[in-house]
């Protein structure tokens, strides 16, 4: 690591007073317990909270992945003897029941979206990085911050428990469209499972809300001296916009959730029309409109799609610059495009509803706005390419994941255009084409970004670096299996192969697709198995990895001036910011980069002047 030397030895490895433990010695066992709780369980330290989010979400990530495998199994070999789960259906000779399958994919999506992607980006990395990167010693509202984590637990429990209630977990899709979701009799999972689903959803919402308020306040009020808005790293910008999105979109979903709850429990009729009879059982009051839910739901959930990708974009931007040893290409355009995505994000929800019976004229307007939202994404992509152009690329594991994020995001973005084109959407709507699309954005995109971030900030979290070799093995296998699984879904969708079918092969149109699906399932199994490498590497490095310095990657942003891991209060001296976050390969200076805190430097000033 040639770059490590460049950090000034004066401040290297100065140990931190980690307040809690020192107390815990004086104290009695009880006292020790209480300090233990207050420090590590009900801690108000943004880093501990961040890690709590990280571990919880990673565990749910495992659950979601296993659910996905079960789904893939049924799609590839319908009604065949299911491994492990087969024990549950011994009387059926090991085959899963269709409503169980619907439950599986519903909960796979639910877990992945509400318990993994959203909390791991905003919760884990937002919490851990925001104060560190803006030079604050903690969040604006530490208690609120703690609550935002502990409000996830009712959600964890609600979703987790719903698997075991009568009728099983929710099984009306993660979109839980009425009247399937509102009418208790319409399917097994629409009983207790659906109610618990709504409860869990509400708690996730509250948690995100608390978080977003906190992030906005912190970023606006608690920046270090000299840290102007336009010296913020992209990560922070992304987190900021995300927080704004959540603050404005979430109330709608929460309200809608309560309306659906009312429809189900006290017989109101917001979403079910007059005299709607399902399974020979009357719905509630009636007089409602199923489409209303779709509008409300997507008014949140489309912005949510950006909530699920923007922070990853931000983090990837920072990682790319660091390992390309090059300033970010077009910093301001990047910021504007993020803002643009956020703005447009509120007026494109209708493109989920082109086939829903919504007035086709509306479809036209939504098509235009949707086409337009592709623009900022394109700008970002070009800027990323511009960033690595002419760089001095260090292919660390983290960088590989970041690059793959770009590569995969291109695919996900482009396939989106098909759906945006209403006439084409007529054919591919609700087929595997859309499945491919959002898995490329959310898995191949966000998840890869998250891995990049984990490998990148791991030293800051635990003071040790992860094993590079096994990291690269993990990357390679994941990358290969991922494309094996999801790219093929495009052509599957081109045949019109519909989503959410427990067995599509009795349709003459689709019966020849089973071998392809089997192939995809093999890849999926490989992909999940690969993550064992990651898990072992992660925990192993946490204790036996090589000790990292404060700034192992020679990055510029503020967190790298703090010790690894930072103690309570983050910085051992108040950081003062003199420049933007991306001053790499500055000509005429010793070392190849200037950290944001490095004192003003003539050569740098000159170079900057020349560059602009």
């Amino acid at each position, binding site marked *: 690591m040639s770059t490590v030397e460049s950090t000034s030895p004066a401040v290297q490895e100065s*140990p931190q007073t980690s307040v809690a433990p020192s107390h815990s010695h004086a104290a009695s066992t009880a006292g020790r317990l209480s300090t233990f709780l207050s420090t590590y369980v009900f801690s108000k330290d943004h880093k501990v909270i961040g890690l709590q989010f990280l571990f919880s979400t990673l565990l749910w990530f495992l659950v979601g992945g296993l659910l996905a495998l079960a789904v893939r199994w049924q799609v590839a070999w319908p009604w065949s003897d299911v491994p492990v789960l087969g024990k549950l259906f011994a009387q059926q000779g090991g085959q899963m029941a269709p*409503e169980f399958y619907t439950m599986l994919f519903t909960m796979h999506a639910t877990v992945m979206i509400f318990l993994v992607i959203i909390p791991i980006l905003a919760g884990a990395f937002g919490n851990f990085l925001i104060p560190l990167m803006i030079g604050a010693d903690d969040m604006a509202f530490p208690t609120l911050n703690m609550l935002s984590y502990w409000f996830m637990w009712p959600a964890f429990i609600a979703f987790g428990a719903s698997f075991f209630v009568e009728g099983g977990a929710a099984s009306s899709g993660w979109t839980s469209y009425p009247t399937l979701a509102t009418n208790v009799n319409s399917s097994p999972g629409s009983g207790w499972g659906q109610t618990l689903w709504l409860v869990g959803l509400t708690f996730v919402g509250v948690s995100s809300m608390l978080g977003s308020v906190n992030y906005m306040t912190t970023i606006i009020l608690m920046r270090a001296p000299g840290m102007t808005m336009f010296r913020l790293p992209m990560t922070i910008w992304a987190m900021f916009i995300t927080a704004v999105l959540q603050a404005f979109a979430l109330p709608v979903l929460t309200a809608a959730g309560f309306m659906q709850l009312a429809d189900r429990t006290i017989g109101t009729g917001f979403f079910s029309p007059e005299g709607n009879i399902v399974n020979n059982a009357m719905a509630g009051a009636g007089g409602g409109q199923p489409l209303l839910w779709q509008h409300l739901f997507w008014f949140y959930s489309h912005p949510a799609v950006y909530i699920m990708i923007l922070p990853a974009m931000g983090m990837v931007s920072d990682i790319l610059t660091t390992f390309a040893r090059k300033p970010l290409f077009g910093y301001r355009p990047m910021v504007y495009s993020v803002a643009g995505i956020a703005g447009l994000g509120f007026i494109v929800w209708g493109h989920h509803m082109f086939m829903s019976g919504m007035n086709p004229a509306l479809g036209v307007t939504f098509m235009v706005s949707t086409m337009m939202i592709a623009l900022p994404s394109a700008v970002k992509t070009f800027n990323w390419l511009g960033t690595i152009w002419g760089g001095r690329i260090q292919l660390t594991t983290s960088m590989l994941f970041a690059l793959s994020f770009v590569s995969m995001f291109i695919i996900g973005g482009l396939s989106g255009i098909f759906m945006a084109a209403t006439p084409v959407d007529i054919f591919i709507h609700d087929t595997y084409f859309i499945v491919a699309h959002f898995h490329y954005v959310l898995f191949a995109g966000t998840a890869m970004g998250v891995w990049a971030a984990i490998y990148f900030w791991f030293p800051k979290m635990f003071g040790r670096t992860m094993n590079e070799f096994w990291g690269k093995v993990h990357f390679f296998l994941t990358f290969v299996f991922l494309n094996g699984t999801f790219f093929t879904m495009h052509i599957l969708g081109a045949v019109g192969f519909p989503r959410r079918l427990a067995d599509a092969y009795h349709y003459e149109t689709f019966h020849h697709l089973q071998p392809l699906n089997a192939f995809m399932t093999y890849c999926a199994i490989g992909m999940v198995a690969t993550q064992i490498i990651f898990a072992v590497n992660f925990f192993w490095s946490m*204790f036996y990895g090589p000790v990292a310095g404060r700034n192992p990657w020679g990055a510029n942003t503020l967190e790298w001036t703090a010790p690894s891991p930072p103690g309570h209060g983050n910085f051992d001296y108040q950081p003062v910011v003199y420049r933007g976050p991306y001053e790499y390969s500055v000509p005429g200076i010793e070392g190849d980069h200037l950290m944001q805190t490095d004192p003003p430097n003539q050569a740098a000033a000159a170079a900057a002047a020349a560059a602009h």
Partner: protein
Amino acid sequence: MKMLVRTLDMEYETVSAFAAQAGFKTPSGDLIRRDTRGHLSSGLFPVWVLGGVAVVLLLLTTTGCGKTAAASYRLNMVESAKQRLKPEQEQQVATILAALFGTPDEPIAPSECGLDAAKLHLAAGPVRSDIVGRKNGLYREHCAHCHGVTGDGMGPTAAFLNPYPRDYRPGVFKFKSTERADKPTHADLVMVLRNGLAGSSMPSFALLSDAKIDALSEYVKYLSIRGEVELALMRAFFELDDEDQGRLPEDREFLIEEIVLPVAEAWQAAEDALIDVPEMAADIDMAASIAKGKELFYGNKANCVKCHGVTGLGDGQVNDYDDWNKVVLQAHKTVQGGLEQAGEASTWDMDADEADEHRAELAWLDRFQKVLDGNALPPRTIRPRNLRQGIYRGGMRPLDLYYRIHAGINGAPMPAAKGTVPPEDIWHIVNYIRSLPYDFNGTLGVDKPMVARDRL
């Protein structure tokens, strides 16, 4: 200020750190202890993690890749509890059934049943999903998740359907072209599979090939016969004489002649027990016929109004049950009554064997309760058909309605009009019922047709 404090901390820390390195005890001694503790647990922790991973892998490989147990038939526990069978007696029934009818994966049937082994083979067993070629395990692909592998109408999905899926085991089928007491013909079963039962959860399988529907019908017959034999066997225990020591004779005379044959013959007899339907007068005056039908509908002769209601909305008799639900309902009553009585009795004023009897009684009631909770669906009332919707479970052809009125609906409260209502009157009722979904103004013609109330 803040900055100053921080720098001070730092200095203190560095000093103490040096001290620690030099082996001196620092005033607070934090670092050293923290150090050791940190390393002790850090030594243990990865072991735990890797252990966990290993366990998961082990789980996946052993339980996962090993095949799960083959599908099995469930005993009719409700009947068994009702007949107070002892475990060894249940065992005997299970064994006899296995001998006579095989397993879900290899079904066989006594030749007396006249079932086609090839068809059974096509329908039975696990789904073998060879996509292009022929597909076996039809029953488990299309039917089992509602009707259950045993055909007891208790598949995983059953509890949520309204009405419940049919339990084949009593051998009672509602919609058929034979007299009330008779079994349905093979064609009847095919018909139901083709058209489904409108207004229930039974979908239409019209798009399956004839061969497949044929095989499935045969398999339904097989499950039904098997279930009836099971019932007969369990009931036979009550008829045993004391010298039999509570064990059924396992010879051909009893098992085949006494138990299997009657069932099998009933099914074979059905094929030529068709109701003969007299022609509806070709030159019938529809309007008049409808008027006549209305008269009968409300009158004391056909008396339809009593159950189907004055409006024909099916609200005349709303708290009646299908026979199989009545059985469960009755069982619940028995158990409740028994428990009450047992509650009143106190073991104080009993001698030893009375007390034993009492305990045995309680044990039985307790098990019965468990069986009713776990092996039976909570009874649901059956409502008379709402005749204003034009949705008729057994089909909407005039012929179907004629069958329903003529023979009633076996297993359901609907009585037969046969014998007491002359055929031409039945036709009038049919015509009237077919007019009910529409606004009928008494006269008919191209210029003023009947118009439906919007059904949906």
